[in-house]
């Protein structure tokens, strides 16, 4: 089972280490982690994707809540939220596959952000599954380098948001 934790924490040095340490010490998985400041400089948001059985996933939430630097923990299931990742990817191209790459980019809403004589840099911002699909599509063509962020997630908009 997968679960997404949206964790608001005090924006202090050492907090990332404390949260990551909690996961390693208690043998919890981190499938993905993304950290950034929120609209409030004093608060950061960590989006952590983890997997495990129900008891483990409940323990993760409780143990996170126990940390004194954690302000709030929201747990999100995939149906309840929008998830996004950003990926930059470099491919090597030649005149035979150039058209194919452009076509894939078109279908996958992927932007070409940079180009040289033999290399192209692509950028995609989408749900993690879409990003996996793009990688799969481009695997037949040669991928040189990949950098992707962790998953970001926010719960879907509702009138109860406040």
């Amino acid at each position, binding site marked *: 089972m997968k679960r997404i934790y949206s964790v608001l924490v005090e924006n202090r040095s050492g907090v990332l280490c404390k949260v990551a340490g909690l996961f390693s010490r208690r043998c919890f998985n981190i499938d993905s982690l993304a950290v950034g400041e929120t609209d409030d400089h004093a608060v950061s948001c960590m989006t952590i994707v983890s997997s495990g059985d129900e008891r483990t996933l409940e323990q993760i939430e409780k143990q996170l809540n*126990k940390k004194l630097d954690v302000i709030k923990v929201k747990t999100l299931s995939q149906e309840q939220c929008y998830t996004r990742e950003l990926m930059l990817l470099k491919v090597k191209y030649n005149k035979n596959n150039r058209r194919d790459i452009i076509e894939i980019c078109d279908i996958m809403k992927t932007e070409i952000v940079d180009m040289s004589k033999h290399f192209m840099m692509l950028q995609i911002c989408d749900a993690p599954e879409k990003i996996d699909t793009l990688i799969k599509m481009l695997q037949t063509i040669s991928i040189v380098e990949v950098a992707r962020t962790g998953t970001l997630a926010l719960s879907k908009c509702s009138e109860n948001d406040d």
Partner: protein
Amino acid sequence: MIGADAIIKCLEAEGVSTVFGYPGVAICPFFNSILDSEIQTVLIRTEQNAAHAASGVARMTGRPGVCAVTSGPGATNVITGIATAFADSIPLICITGQVNSELLGSDVFQEADITGTVESFVKYSYLVKNVNDIPRVFKEAFYIANTGRKGPVLIDIPIDIQNAVIKNFHYPEEVNLRTYKPTVKGHAVQIKKVIKELERAKRPIICAGGGVLLSEAEEELRGFAEEHGIPVVSTMMGIGVMPTEHPLYYGMVGNNGKAYANRAMNESDLLIMVGARVADRAVSQPDLITRNKILVHIDVDPAEIGKNAGPSIPLVGDAKHIFQDFQKEEFSCDYEEWIATLNEYRSTMEKKRTPNPNYVDPAAFITRLSEKMQEDGVYVADVGQNQIWSCGYHIVKKGKFLTSGGMGTMGYSIPAAMGAKTAAMDKQVIAVCGDGSFQMSMMELATIRQHNIPVKIIVLKNNYLGMVREYQHYTYKDHYSVVDLSGSPDLEKLSAAYDIPYLRLNNMEHVDEVLDAFLAEDNTMLLECMIDPMDLVK
């Protein structure tokens, strides 16, 4: 006023009377300023014991114990003591000196990243980088250590911050922590549910853990149990919640506990676990405590509930508040049949020992000792076979029973007893250890002598690391490895070297006169009891 003066002011404001510590350059400003205060300092002989001694203070007073050590090796040495306190949820304030803040991270002499290193053993830690933060940090630290699920808090203070001038010292009256608001009051709906189950139950039992003692809820729990005739068992850390000979108390559970206590817990139809972690030594098979029964789990730490066993009724809150709320509820119940069954178990299932008459029988000795101890005497058990014998045969009356239950740290008893005695000079305090655990803390005999801390020490000597030897006896068929304690010092000569009176008991023949002599005065004394090296706890 400089930072170091401010720290002392904070400790004074918190009513701290003793600091256990070991100096080094990085904590010298602190130890210089403390000379101008009424706070007593005790020079411990190794840093680990400073934390154990502070733990003894905390467990006697219900307030955080304080220790202060230097940077680098001083700080790393204290970690085992902190981890011991953390495992048993004992509130500590541990102050560590640190190198100059401008040199942090450059691996200078005696620099250790202590806040990073100790992270998994503290409730919280601070690295103070601005002298003006000192009052707020200390106020928060004492509050965090002693509220909710208690635990150690470490404050790391670079030497330049201790020496920096602080403009306005003002000790805050309140803390303002947006991320920390422990739940102490139990949810009313959950409380009603528990009462309903008690009405329905035929075989209820309360299993009391160390959390009951930490929230000082002994009276409430006992009162509730007595009013409704509910039997009580305890974990190792819960020893002392009920007097051992209370008719409703059925002993310690767990793989080193009483067989009838485990049977009582397993056969119950309603188990109320309170302030206990459901850890492996108390409950080796968590499914047994949920099978065919309703499990109510009461704990101030929500993360403990459901961690090792899924309860039918989770109840987050402080034991004292919750039992006060239970006491307000009226309900009818009749558990007499159940009590009769348990009494039968208790009278028939006590294991018979076959002691070797040439040696001191630790079981009979410990029982005799408890009979002769003052009613409110403090018994500090170490770790090893001696601990299991102590748990099994010490009779608690009105006193406290202190031991390292969660971490099982050898060498705990002597420094913890020193801390306990310092905090309660009017009480009789006795440390009971084995010859292995004694040698882990025997350097503290000097501290006892230097500071005149009249704790009594009993060494159950069997020339082995007995607990491991026993394990090797069963698991490796007497293939003993690294458990022989030959080479240990002659304790009579050792006591003489420290100018500490010494007594020795070879067998049970003179137990009464030796114990009477040992307990006659409120002074330090060492009693060595010769135990059969092959004796077993099981």
